[in-house]
Protein backbone atom coordinates (compact mmCIF):
# COMPACT_ATOMS: atom_id res chain seq x y z
CA UNK A 1 0.00 0.00 0.00
CA UNK A 2 2.88 2.40 0.53
CA UNK A 3 4.78 1.61 -2.67
CA UNK A 4 3.64 4.64 -4.64
CA UNK A 5 4.30 6.99 -1.77
CA UNK A 6 7.74 5.52 -1.23
CA UNK A 7 8.50 5.81 -4.93
CA UNK A 8 7.40 9.40 -5.04
CA UNK A 9 9.33 10.32 -1.90
CA UNK A 10 12.45 8.55 -3.18
CA UNK A 11 12.23 10.58 -6.37
CA UNK A 12 11.78 13.82 -4.49
CA UNK A 13 14.66 13.11 -2.15
CA UNK A 14 17.02 11.90 -4.84
CA UNK A 15 16.30 14.83 -7.12
CA UNK A 16 17.05 17.16 -4.24
CA UNK A 17 13.65 18.80 -4.54
CA UNK A 18 13.06 18.24 -0.86
CA UNK A 19 15.32 18.19 2.13
CA UNK A 20 13.17 15.71 3.95
CA UNK A 21 9.79 14.05 3.93
CA UNK A 22 7.54 14.24 6.95
CA UNK A 23 5.54 11.05 7.09
CA UNK A 24 4.83 8.16 9.39
CA UNK A 25 7.05 5.26 10.30
CA UNK A 26 6.61 2.08 12.22
CA UNK A 27 9.20 1.63 14.91
CA UNK A 28 9.30 -0.52 18.01
CA UNK A 29 5.78 -1.66 17.33
CA UNK A 30 4.41 1.87 17.27
CA UNK A 31 3.50 4.24 14.48
CA UNK A 32 4.76 7.77 14.78
CA UNK A 33 5.75 10.82 12.77
CA UNK A 34 9.15 10.68 11.13
CA UNK A 35 11.22 12.96 8.95
CA UNK A 36 12.72 10.82 6.21
CA UNK A 37 15.87 12.43 4.88
CA UNK A 38 17.63 9.49 3.26
CA UNK A 39 16.13 7.91 0.11
CA UNK A 40 17.50 4.55 1.24
CA UNK A 41 15.76 4.81 4.57
CA UNK A 42 12.13 4.46 3.54
CA UNK A 43 11.72 0.84 4.62
CA UNK A 44 9.82 1.68 7.80
CA UNK A 45 7.44 4.11 6.14
CA UNK A 46 3.74 3.45 6.70
CA UNK A 47 0.50 5.31 6.06
CA UNK A 48 -0.83 4.95 9.56
CA UNK A 49 -3.23 2.06 9.27
CA UNK A 50 -2.60 -0.29 12.16
CA UNK A 51 -5.88 -2.09 12.59
CA UNK A 52 -8.48 0.21 11.11
CA UNK A 53 -7.86 2.68 8.32
CA UNK A 54 -6.31 5.87 9.53
CA UNK A 55 -6.20 4.97 13.17
CA UNK A 56 -2.75 6.40 13.66
CA UNK A 57 -3.01 9.94 12.43
CA UNK A 58 -0.85 12.82 13.49
CA UNK A 59 -1.02 16.55 12.78
CA UNK A 60 1.91 16.34 10.37
CA UNK A 61 1.18 19.78 8.94
CA UNK A 62 1.44 21.23 12.43
CA UNK A 63 4.75 19.47 13.02
CA UNK A 64 5.92 20.82 9.69
CA UNK A 65 5.51 24.37 10.97
CA UNK A 66 8.18 23.71 13.56
CA UNK A 67 10.52 22.00 11.13
CA UNK A 68 10.04 24.76 8.57
CA UNK A 69 10.82 27.42 11.17
CA UNK A 70 14.10 25.73 11.99
CA UNK A 71 15.02 25.33 8.31
CA UNK A 72 13.41 28.31 6.60
CA UNK A 73 15.34 27.89 3.36
CA UNK A 74 14.63 24.22 2.85
CA UNK A 75 11.72 22.56 1.09
CA UNK A 76 10.02 19.62 2.74
CA UNK A 77 7.62 16.98 1.56
CA UNK A 78 4.71 15.96 3.71
CA UNK A 79 2.19 13.14 3.67
CA UNK A 80 -1.34 14.46 3.24
CA UNK A 81 -4.82 13.09 3.36
CA UNK A 82 -7.71 15.30 2.23
CA UNK A 83 -7.93 16.98 5.60
CA UNK A 84 -4.17 17.48 5.89
CA UNK A 85 -4.20 19.21 2.54
CA UNK A 86 -6.97 21.50 3.70
CA UNK A 87 -4.80 22.12 6.72
CA UNK A 88 -1.81 23.03 4.58
CA UNK A 89 -3.87 25.42 2.50
CA UNK A 90 -5.23 27.08 5.60
CA UNK A 91 -1.79 27.29 7.17
CA UNK A 92 -0.52 28.99 4.01
CA UNK A 93 -3.39 31.44 4.31
CA UNK A 94 -2.45 32.19 7.88
CA UNK A 95 1.19 32.69 6.99
CA UNK A 96 2.35 29.72 9.03
CA UNK A 97 3.83 27.79 6.15
CA UNK A 98 5.24 28.90 2.83
CA UNK A 99 3.59 27.05 -0.05
CA UNK A 100 6.78 27.35 -2.09
CA UNK A 101 8.60 25.31 0.50
CA UNK A 102 6.13 22.46 0.88
CA UNK A 103 5.54 19.55 -1.47
CA UNK A 104 2.55 17.47 -0.39
CA UNK A 105 2.34 13.81 -1.30
CA UNK A 106 -1.28 12.77 -1.21
CA UNK A 107 -3.10 9.62 -0.20
CA UNK A 108 -6.83 9.09 -0.52
CA UNK A 109 -8.73 7.81 2.48
CA UNK A 110 -10.63 4.52 2.26
CA UNK A 111 -14.41 4.66 2.32
CA UNK A 112 -14.50 3.30 5.85
CA UNK A 113 -12.55 6.29 7.13
CA UNK A 114 -14.52 8.74 5.00
CA UNK A 115 -17.70 7.33 6.55
CA UNK A 116 -16.37 7.53 10.08
CA UNK A 117 -15.14 11.09 9.53
CA UNK A 118 -18.29 12.20 7.71
CA UNK A 119 -15.76 13.83 5.43
CA UNK A 120 -16.88 16.24 2.76
CA UNK A 121 -13.80 15.48 0.67
CA UNK A 122 -11.80 12.44 1.80
CA UNK A 123 -9.01 12.89 -0.72
CA UNK A 124 -6.48 15.53 -1.64
CA UNK A 125 -6.46 17.19 -5.04
CA UNK A 126 -3.73 14.86 -6.19
CA UNK A 127 -2.90 11.53 -4.67
CA UNK A 128 -0.57 8.67 -5.44
CA UNK A 129 -2.20 6.03 -3.26
CA UNK A 130 -5.74 4.82 -2.65
CA UNK A 131 -8.96 5.49 -4.46
CA UNK A 132 -11.35 8.38 -4.29
CA UNK A 133 -13.97 7.54 -1.69
CA UNK A 134 -17.44 8.98 -1.67
CA UNK A 135 -18.04 12.21 0.22
CA UNK A 136 -20.21 12.07 3.32
CA UNK A 137 -22.36 14.71 4.95
CA UNK A 138 -22.48 15.25 8.65
CA UNK A 139 -25.18 13.18 10.28
CA UNK A 140 -23.82 14.01 13.73
CA UNK A 141 -24.56 17.70 13.22
CA UNK A 142 -28.01 17.00 11.85
CA UNK A 143 -28.77 14.87 14.86
CA UNK A 144 -28.03 17.64 17.33
CA UNK A 145 -29.71 20.29 15.19
CA UNK A 146 -32.83 18.14 15.32
CA UNK A 147 -33.07 18.47 19.09
CA UNK A 148 -35.11 21.04 20.92
CA UNK A 149 -32.99 24.00 22.02
CA UNK A 150 -33.16 22.99 25.69
CA UNK A 151 -32.16 19.44 24.89
CA UNK A 152 -29.26 20.70 22.84
CA UNK A 153 -28.03 22.60 25.86
CA UNK A 154 -28.47 19.66 28.21
CA UNK A 155 -26.75 17.36 25.80
CA UNK A 156 -23.73 19.62 25.31
CA UNK A 157 -23.43 20.34 29.00
CA UNK A 158 -23.42 16.61 29.66
CA UNK A 159 -20.63 16.15 27.15
CA UNK A 160 -18.60 19.13 28.39
CA UNK A 161 -19.00 18.07 32.03
CA UNK A 162 -16.51 15.27 31.40
CA UNK A 163 -13.77 17.64 30.26
CA UNK A 164 -10.56 17.26 32.24
CA UNK A 165 -8.97 20.37 30.74
CA UNK A 166 -6.08 18.42 29.30
CA UNK A 167 -5.87 20.76 26.28
CA UNK A 168 -5.45 17.70 24.05
CA UNK A 169 -7.91 19.13 21.52
CA UNK A 170 -5.88 22.29 21.24
CA UNK A 171 -2.47 20.73 21.37
CA UNK A 172 -3.14 18.32 18.54
CA UNK A 173 -5.05 20.83 16.41
CA UNK A 174 -3.09 21.79 13.31
CA UNK A 175 -4.94 25.08 13.21
CA UNK A 176 -3.96 25.98 16.78
CA UNK A 177 -0.68 27.66 16.02
CA UNK A 178 -0.82 30.44 18.59
CA UNK A 179 2.04 30.86 21.01
CA UNK A 180 -0.31 31.88 23.75
CA UNK A 181 -3.79 30.48 24.06
CA UNK A 182 -6.91 32.31 25.16
CA UNK A 183 -8.00 29.15 26.89
CA UNK A 184 -5.17 29.77 29.31
CA UNK A 185 -5.99 33.43 29.83
CA UNK A 186 -7.34 33.51 33.32
CA UNK A 187 -9.30 36.67 32.59
CA UNK A 188 -11.40 34.57 30.25
CA UNK A 189 -11.44 31.12 31.80
CA UNK A 190 -11.37 30.42 35.51
CA UNK A 191 -8.54 28.21 36.58
CA UNK A 192 -8.11 25.40 39.04
CA UNK A 193 -11.36 23.56 38.51
CA UNK A 194 -12.69 20.46 36.80
CA UNK A 195 -14.54 20.57 34.61
CA UNK A 196 -13.24 23.90 33.35
CA UNK A 197 -15.87 26.61 33.20
CA UNK A 198 -18.46 25.08 30.90
CA UNK A 199 -19.68 25.71 28.28
CA UNK A 200 -17.50 28.83 27.99
CA UNK A 201 -14.25 26.91 27.67
CA UNK A 202 -15.53 24.92 24.71
CA UNK A 203 -17.42 27.77 23.10
CA UNK A 204 -14.35 30.02 23.19
CA UNK A 205 -12.49 27.33 21.35
CA UNK A 206 -15.39 26.84 18.95
CA UNK A 207 -15.34 30.55 18.13
CA UNK A 208 -11.63 30.38 17.44
CA UNK A 209 -12.26 27.46 15.12
CA UNK A 210 -14.60 29.54 13.00
CA UNK A 211 -13.08 29.96 9.57
CA UNK A 212 -10.17 27.77 10.58
CA UNK A 213 -11.21 24.23 11.43
CA UNK A 214 -10.40 21.99 8.49
CA UNK A 215 -12.31 19.03 9.96
CA UNK A 216 -9.44 16.62 10.46
CA UNK A 217 -11.10 15.25 13.56
CA UNK A 218 -7.91 14.80 15.55
CA UNK A 219 -9.54 16.65 18.46
CA UNK A 220 -12.20 14.00 18.64
CA UNK A 221 -9.68 11.21 18.50
CA UNK A 222 -7.42 12.63 21.16
CA UNK A 223 -10.11 13.64 23.66
CA UNK A 224 -9.85 11.36 26.70
CA UNK A 225 -13.36 12.36 27.67
CA UNK A 226 -14.88 11.42 24.30
CA UNK A 227 -16.40 14.87 23.86
CA UNK A 228 -17.73 15.13 20.28
CA UNK A 229 -15.78 18.30 19.57
CA UNK A 230 -15.59 17.55 15.89
CA UNK A 231 -19.36 17.78 15.64
CA UNK A 232 -19.27 21.19 17.29
CA UNK A 233 -16.60 22.46 14.91
CA UNK A 234 -18.30 20.89 11.90
CA UNK A 235 -21.32 23.01 12.74
CA UNK A 236 -19.10 26.06 13.13
CA UNK A 237 -17.74 25.42 9.64
CA UNK A 238 -21.26 24.94 8.31
CA UNK A 239 -22.35 28.27 9.76
CA UNK A 240 -19.45 30.12 8.18
CA UNK A 241 -20.24 28.45 4.89
CA UNK A 242 -23.94 29.28 5.08
CA UNK A 243 -23.40 32.87 6.14
CA UNK A 244 -20.27 33.81 4.26
CA UNK A 245 -19.88 31.17 1.62
CA UNK A 246 -16.50 30.17 2.94
CA UNK A 247 -15.11 26.83 4.11
CA UNK A 248 -11.51 26.62 5.30
CA UNK A 249 -9.31 24.51 3.09
CA UNK A 250 -11.97 24.41 0.37
CA UNK A 251 -12.32 28.12 -0.30
CA UNK A 252 -9.50 30.48 -1.15
CA UNK A 253 -8.08 33.00 1.26
CA UNK A 254 -9.13 33.82 4.77
CA UNK A 255 -12.59 33.58 6.17
CA UNK A 256 -14.69 36.74 5.66
CA UNK A 257 -14.96 36.74 9.43
CA UNK A 258 -11.25 37.47 9.52
CA UNK A 259 -11.17 39.98 6.72
CA UNK A 260 -12.21 43.53 7.21
CA UNK A 261 -15.50 43.93 5.42
CA UNK A 262 -16.11 47.28 3.87
CA UNK A 263 -19.51 48.90 3.76
CA UNK A 264 -19.26 48.56 0.02
CA UNK A 265 -19.13 44.79 0.27
CA UNK A 266 -22.30 44.57 2.27
Amino acid at each position, binding site marked *: MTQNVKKKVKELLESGKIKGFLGLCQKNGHIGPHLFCDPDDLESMVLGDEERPGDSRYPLNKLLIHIARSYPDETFGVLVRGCDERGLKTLYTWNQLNPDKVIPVGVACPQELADACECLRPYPEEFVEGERAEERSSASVTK*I*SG*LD*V*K*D*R*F*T*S*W*MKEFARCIKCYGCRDICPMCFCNECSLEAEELIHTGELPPE*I*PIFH*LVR*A*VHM*AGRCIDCGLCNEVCPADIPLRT*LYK*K*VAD*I*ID*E*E*FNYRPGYSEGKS*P*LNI*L*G*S*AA*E*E
Partner: protein
Amino acid sequence: MGDCHYLYGNVATEKRVRFLKKLLAFSGIEEERLRCKWVSSAEASEFVEEMQDFTETLRALGPSPLKQAGAQRAA
Protein backbone atom coordinates in the same frame (compact mmCIF):
# COMPACT_ATOMS: atom_id res chain seq x y z
CA MET B 1 -23.80 50.33 8.01
CA GLY B 2 -21.34 52.89 6.72
CA ASP B 3 -21.57 55.16 9.72
CA CYS B 4 -19.15 53.50 12.09
CA HIS B 5 -16.75 55.89 13.73
CA TYR B 6 -14.08 53.30 13.10
CA LEU B 7 -15.08 52.62 9.51
CA TYR B 8 -15.97 48.94 9.37
CA GLY B 9 -15.94 47.89 12.99
CA ASN B 10 -19.68 47.52 12.83
CA VAL B 11 -19.46 45.36 9.73
CA ALA B 12 -17.07 43.06 11.57
CA THR B 13 -19.41 43.04 14.54
CA GLU B 14 -22.40 42.25 12.41
CA LYS B 15 -20.59 39.28 10.89
CA ARG B 16 -19.58 37.96 14.28
CA VAL B 17 -23.04 38.35 15.67
CA ARG B 18 -24.50 36.52 12.71
CA PHE B 19 -22.08 33.67 13.37
CA LEU B 20 -22.53 33.71 17.12
CA LYS B 21 -26.30 33.57 16.99
CA LYS B 22 -26.12 30.35 15.06
CA LEU B 23 -23.40 28.91 17.26
CA LEU B 24 -25.41 29.75 20.37
CA ALA B 25 -28.49 28.14 18.87
CA PHE B 26 -26.55 24.95 18.13
CA SER B 27 -25.15 24.96 21.65
CA GLY B 28 -28.61 25.17 23.10
CA ILE B 29 -28.68 28.84 24.04
CA GLU B 30 -31.59 30.67 22.43
CA GLU B 31 -30.21 32.96 19.77
CA GLU B 32 -32.74 35.62 20.73
CA ARG B 33 -30.56 36.26 23.78
CA LEU B 34 -28.08 37.97 21.51
CA ARG B 35 -29.18 41.02 19.65
CA CYS B 36 -27.26 43.56 17.64
CA LYS B 37 -28.82 46.79 16.44
CA TRP B 38 -27.39 50.07 15.34
CA VAL B 39 -28.97 53.07 16.93
CA SER B 40 -27.41 56.49 16.53
CA SER B 41 -27.18 59.02 19.32
CA ALA B 42 -29.95 60.95 17.60
CA GLU B 43 -32.37 58.05 17.80
CA ALA B 44 -33.33 58.06 21.44
CA SER B 45 -36.80 56.67 20.96
CA GLU B 46 -35.52 53.82 18.79
CA PHE B 47 -33.04 52.97 21.51
CA VAL B 48 -35.71 52.95 24.20
CA GLU B 49 -38.02 50.86 22.06
CA GLU B 50 -35.28 48.42 21.26
CA MET B 51 -34.26 48.01 24.87
CA GLN B 52 -37.80 47.55 26.02
CA ASP B 53 -38.46 45.04 23.34
CA PHE B 54 -35.26 43.16 24.16
CA THR B 55 -36.13 43.15 27.86
CA GLU B 56 -39.51 41.67 27.01
CA THR B 57 -37.90 39.04 24.81
CA LEU B 58 -35.55 38.04 27.59
CA ARG B 59 -38.32 37.99 30.15
CA ALA B 60 -40.35 35.70 27.92
CA LEU B 61 -37.37 33.38 27.45
CA GLY B 62 -36.86 33.08 31.19
CA PRO B 63 -33.55 32.70 33.01
CA SER B 64 -30.55 31.81 30.90
CA PRO B 65 -29.64 28.12 30.83
CA LEU B 66 -26.09 29.25 31.61
CA LYS B 67 -27.26 30.85 34.82
CA GLN B 68 -29.08 27.70 35.78
CA ALA B 69 -26.03 25.59 35.01
CA GLY B 70 -23.93 27.94 37.10
CA ALA B 71 -26.34 27.68 39.99
CA GLN B 72 -26.21 23.91 39.78
CA ARG B 73 -22.46 23.94 39.84
CA ALA B 74 -22.37 26.18 42.88
CA ALA B 75 -24.87 24.00 44.76
